[in-house]
């Protein structure tokens, strides 16, 4: 990740370059990196802004084309400036044309967007008023969720009752989206048998604070998941809190402590089993509901922890899926040794 580092300190280097150029005499030996950077600044001036890394890579490609294949891509100047300039001129010509087209494209799309805004604003004027008590959205569907939801699902929190009982199929699809995203990032970013970069543990203040904070965050996350049908919360929000706790732990403990316990394989297994449990419970419920066969799960008394039939285990499954997915996203963006 050398190039990023350079890129990050771009501003600092500009300052350095500016101050040094005054001090040094003209015939002093040139710093190759500085010279390259100077060329880069000239290039930006002549063309358009591109990142330093991209510029270097382009130059590297140009050098390769000319047959000056140097392995020292990061640290040395390139010897063939006149040839390079020729090359650049050619591409500059093309770029001008492209820029002209892009300009039109931009103007057209801004214009179209303005028209869309105007039309949508007109639409919005005709929609029911904000906070209207007689809005059409407050019809028998919403009323039943609010009035009978408590008896029918055993959930105090109407939204949990809705997403896990009335519209459970949508929620199943949602969990599948999350799972698909986790697997996708895994497929794109994970290279097996590559050790993670050894990171230092967080600094002292961070460690001290999080030592006391972590148990509380985890406790709070568990509470939000488990009491999702009774109080505000639920699998999704609680899972996000738990995922954040895992990420914090991984940052603070450092050196892959958490990764050692929760390997990518185990995390995937947990997600898979939670999803399978969810699917099993819900297909039982769908099947019995659709075929009007009995329903043997006790609802319990609304307002107690063990109530609402399947709601508690369902929330637990969703919470696990969300937490694991968040954590997977995080681990996959940790740089590996190679970089």
């Amino acid at each position, binding site marked *: 990740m050398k190039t990023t580092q350079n890129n990050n300190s771009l501003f600092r280097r500009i300052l350095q370059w500016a101050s040094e150029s005054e001090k040094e005499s003209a015939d002093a030996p040139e710093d190759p990196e500085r010279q390259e950077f100077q060329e880069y600044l000239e290039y930006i001036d002549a063309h358009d802004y591109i990142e330093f890394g991209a510029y270097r890579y382009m130059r590297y490609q140009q050098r390769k084309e000319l047959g000056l294949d140097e392995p020292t891509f990061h640290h040395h100047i390139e010897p063939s400036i006149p040839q390079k300039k020729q090359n650049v001129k050619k591409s500059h010509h093309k770029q001008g044309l492209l820029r002209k087209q892009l300009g039109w494209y931009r103007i057209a799309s801004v214009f179209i967007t303005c028209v869309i805004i105007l039309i949508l604003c007109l639409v919005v004027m005709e*929609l029911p008023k904000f906070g209207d008590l007689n809005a059409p959205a407050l019809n028998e569907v919403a009323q039943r969720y609010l009035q009978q939801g408590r008896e029918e699902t055993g959930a105090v929190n109407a939204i949990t009752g809705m997403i896990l009982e*009335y519209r459970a199929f949508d929620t199943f699809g949602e969990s599948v989206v999350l799972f698909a995203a986790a697997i996708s990032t895994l497929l794109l970013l994970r290279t097996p048998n590559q050790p993670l970069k050894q990171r230092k543990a967080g600094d002292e203040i961070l460690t001290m604070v999080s030592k006391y904070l972590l148990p509380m965050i985890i406790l709070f996350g568990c509470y939000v998941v488990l009491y999702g049908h009774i109080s505000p919360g639920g699998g999704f929000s609680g899972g996000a809190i738990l995922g954040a706790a895992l990420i914090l732990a991984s940052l603070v403990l450092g050196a892959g402590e958490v990764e050692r316990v929760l390997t990518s394989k185990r995390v995937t297994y947990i997600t898979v089993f939670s999803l399978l449990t969810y699917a099993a419970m819900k297909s039982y419920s769908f099947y019995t509901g659709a*075929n009007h066969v009995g*329903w043997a799960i006790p609802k319990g008394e609304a307002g107690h922890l063990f109530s609402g039939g399947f709601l508690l285990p369902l929330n637990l499954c969703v919470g696990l899926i969300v937490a694991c997915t968040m954590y997977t996203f995080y681990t996959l963006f940790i740089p590996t040794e190679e970089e």
Partner: protein
Amino acid sequence: MGLVYNIPLFSILLVVVSGVCIPLFRNGRHVIRFIQIVQCMVGVGSLFLMVELSTLNESFTYQLGHVPAPWGNELRAGPLEGLFAFVFSLVMVLTFSGSREDLIADIKPHRLGNYCLLMQLLYGALLAMIYTDDLFTAYVFVEVAAVTACVVVSAKESGRSIVSAIRYLMFNCLGSGLFLLGIAILYALTGHLLFSSLQQAVEQYLLSGSSKLPLIVSALLMTLGLSIKSAQFPFHAWLPDAHASATTTSSAILSGLLLKGYLIILMKLMVRVFGPFVMVSSYLCDLLLLLGLAGMLFASVAALRQEEVKRMIAYSSSAQISYIFLSLGLGSQLGLLAACFQIIVHALTKSMIFLGAGAMINGVHGHYWGQLRGAARKVPVGGIAFTVGGLSLCGIPLLAGFSSKYCIALAALDSDWQMAPALFGLAASSVLNAMYYIPAILVIWGRTKPNQEEEWNPISIGWEQKLALGFLLFCNLYLGMRFGLVRNLIEQGINLLGSFG
């Protein structure tokens, strides 16, 4: 309620659950077999469902959970849905068989399992799109399809495929944003998400004559979102790259099935929610017709200039999608029938063309026309598949493409002012199709060196690939010669779906 009625739910659940189980496998090659078995099971189930419902002449809604429809979710199935599910399963199985070697060669072994997982989830999402009867369920599964399809495009891991995946994702996000905004506006107006309740609410608005603008705009937004996702002409920028750079399996599935999944939702929206009145009074039908016409011509012209075989096929996909838009835009029952028929024909034909092209690309290790000269002599089975598919899309009689064009022409003849432009577009695009497919066919059967007799040494390909291509060929010929059965089935299904036009 017999067990047959559980088939829609259980086919979706089976597919998704089998996909989720894949991380438990160790060997990627076994995974391909495993998902093919599941696909076969779902295909057989759908066939059974289709036959049963067609003989009973009925369609049904399936309540998910213990609460009836406006409160809970619902699935809906009739002969048409059964037919779609069956064809989609068939195409999935045959594509995996036909491009098995490509798949193993293109994708790193430790990623094969995850690739199959995503494919299976994509297939589950497609099934859910076919059976859903709820707008929001449709949205959720559209998203599943969007996420999985992007990764499926980039699975080859070349720089170009990742760039095209990112562009695809951008268009996809825009499409789902517009679709969700449309849903939000419609929900604010009616307070329903279920198709049948939405239809009643929309009818009431139409009777009272109020809030016409929001209704039309929401219909427009949803149509726009779905047409971006299905690569209709002005929004097709992402398609050629995505298909050309992906591995053969991905291209065949994406072009053959995924684009149609969105169109099925669009069709359901048109028939079951907005009905003919909104469609006609908001000029939405005319818009669809216009988009279709423009797409048929422009995409075909663009296909003429392609130097890469897969890019050309991708542009031809965009042109074929435009046929569906055109026939939906005719706004009649016959147009709808033609659209459904075109969906089925194109799903079967395009996957065959992609598989044939993939086999030839593998045979000669090059995908430009210059490199493909004489490829069909090396890989005769792939060459035949490509040739028959290409001729079918040109509309040569006795092949499937002809019968779908015939259906569209029948629908066009039945309409009033749309007749002339639709027939003109049909004729012009057939000529254009011929202009790029016939030279391509001549190139692949040509000799690498002129005036020189070459020995005939075809590369041997696996029996599975041969079988898959042979079966697709058979389907194509069958649909070309005896399409009465399928047509009657679609007609029955559409009548049960709702009246239109």
